[in-house]
Structure formats: structure tokens, C-alpha cells
């Protein structure tokens, strides 16, 4: 369950970024996960829910952009997307290539920040509900 370590890192970075931006509540994170990164999305979701529980990130959404593997084929002089990760061969000519251009990503792409709830919830800041 290395997804737990990854989820912990996501929370640390998101929290730090929100703080640097002057606070606010992190309501969502978007990741870019390469198909070679060995991350199981369901396991990551469970881990994320687990590590955010009871923190300011509780309930935050988790969006995953899956990144396919792309290799460079020398003979074709072109970059190709691979349908899978079990054969690093050019789909056009069959040449095996170790020149990987994408697919190892394990990135935090963006975070969604809502205005600070604590400030908004204080009696002074609270606006009367429209009746």
C-alpha cells in the first residue's frame, strides 16, 4: 500500500500551497498519473479519504488524469502513444524503443481552493440569509 505514502504527500503539498496562497480550504485536487507509475487508483482514493479524515482537507475531491505511455521511435522519427505498457514497441514499425517521453508522471496538477470557511463562519462575517 504505497498509495498511503503518496496520499500523505499529496495532502502535505496541497496544504502547504493553500497556506502560501493565504489560506482557504482545499476542496479538490487533480493529479496526473502515468500508466507506468504503478499507482492503483482505487487504492489511492481510499488512502486519500483515510489521510484527509479529520483534517481541513476532509471531503476534498480527487480527480485523476491518466497519462498513457509515449515513446520516441528513431526509425520513424516520431513520437507514439502506446496502447499498453507491456511492449515498448513502435505501433507503426514494431521497433523496440527505450526512449520514453511520457507515462511516468506522478504529479499534483492543481488544487481547488474555496474561500476560508473559518473566516466566513465567524458571526461578523456571516451574512444574513435571504428570507
Amino acid at each position, binding site marked *: 500500500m504505497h498509495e498511503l505514502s503518496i496520499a500523505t504527500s499529496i495532502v502535505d503539498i496541497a496544504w502547504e500551497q493553500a497556506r502560501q496562497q493565504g489560506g482557504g480550504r482545499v476542496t479538490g485536487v487533480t493529479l496526473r498519473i502515468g500508466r507506468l507509475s504503478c499507482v492503483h487508483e482505487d487504492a489511492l482514493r481510499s488512502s486519500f479519504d483515510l489521510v484527509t479524515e479529520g483534517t481541513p482537507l476532509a471531503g476534498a475531491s480527487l480527480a485523476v488524469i491518466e497519462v498513457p505511455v509515449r515513446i520516441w521511435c528513431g526509425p520513424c522519427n516520431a513520437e507514439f502513444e502506446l496502447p499498453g505498457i507491456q511492449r515498448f514497441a513502435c505501433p507503426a514499425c514494431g521497433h523496440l524503443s527505450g526512449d520514453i517521453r511520457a507515462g511516468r508522471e506522478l504529479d499534483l*496538477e492543481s488544487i481547488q481552493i474555496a474561500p476560508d470557511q473559518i473566516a466566513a463562519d465567524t458571526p461578523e462575517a456571516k451574512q444574513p440569509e435571504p428570507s
Partner: protein
Amino acid sequence: MIEPRILEVRTKILKKNDELARAMRREFESLGLLVVNMVSSPGTGKTSFLRETLSRLRARGIPVAAVVGDLETDNDARRLAESGAPVRQIMTHGLCHLEADMVQSHLAGWNLADLHYLFIENVGNLVCPTSWDLGESVRLALLSVTEGEDKPLKYPGLFNTADIAAITKTDLAAACEFNRELARANIEAVRPGMRIIETSVKTGAGIDEWFDYLAEKRRALEARTA
């Protein structure tokens, strides 16, 4: 109501580990120390392969050390200590992989400048260690003849991050009806161009080739930092 805003972060999730690992690698390489991260399934024979490596290198007068990751026991460290080399155990207490800071904290007190090679035996697992850089210069993936030729296809992510593959227990190949051509083709499919060595701790097959590879890598590292 104010809408939530999107903040582009574009940060590597394992940035902290990556940065530490890069700094460690810079230090190791500046000292002429080649660090090898060994990854495989449980039962591939990492510990036997490493014990043989340590014993034989020591017999040649080459200074070596090892750190070994294990979930709960120190059995591997005790087995490796039989080689006479300095060995430290990293007990991960359930964590399925090693991280750079765990390695770093277990090197305290060793004079790294005196060593030529440091081996890190990762936790036996072909998935979780993939994304954690430990500051190594070489990642060795091991596969035994008893595991089946399709292991690289089942775990392409990890094999794809390796620099060299060792097929172990080749003395058992006939008994396992191991198809070496198929195994080599599968490794080549997931990591085209990777060097593959066929080894047996029992017969000593492939060990010299392994040492030649290590020596060549260390020379390259010394040439880079000279």
C-alpha cells in the same frame, strides 16, 4: 457565494523524496561510491545474491557495505553479516518499500568515502518500490527462474525503471523448464536495450559479469566526477 478557484501546482507528488535522493546521489558519486538499489519479488534470492556479492568483493579487497529493508525481521541482515561486510537493517514495520530518508538515516557513522559499493536491498515487492528514488546510481531488478518468464510483463512499471536485470537461480532452470529466450524477450519488451545477466549463486555463473558491470559503472562515475 464565491466560487472555489483552481490553483495550478504542477508539482511532483514525491518531490521531497526526489530532492533528497538527488542530493544523496550527488554526495555518493562525489565520493566515488556506487550505490545499487536491488528490487525483486519476495523469494527471488536477493539476499543470497547480495551475500555472495559482498563476500566475493570483500575477498578481492574491495570495501563494500549494505543496508537491507525488511517488513518485520532482521533475518536478512544476519544472513548478510556472514559475509563480514558492514550491514544495517531497515525495519519498515509494514511499509512496502524503502524511501530515501530511511536509507539516509541508516548510513550515519559510516565513512562513505572509504567504500566502493553500497548495496540497498529493497523490500521484496515488484510494485511499491518503483517510484521511490533512493539516491542509487544503479537499479538492479532480479527475477528467478522459478518465478515464470512472464514476470516482467506482469510488473512492467518496475522493470522499466531498472538499469540492469539479473536472472537468478539458473542452476534450477532445467528443473523449472525455464524458457530463457522467452524470459529475455519479455525483459527486452518492457525495457528495450537493458543489460541482462544470468546468474547462479550456487555455481557462480554470471557473477564475474556482474562484477565487470559494477566496475564499469564505478569507473564511469569516477570519470564523471573527476
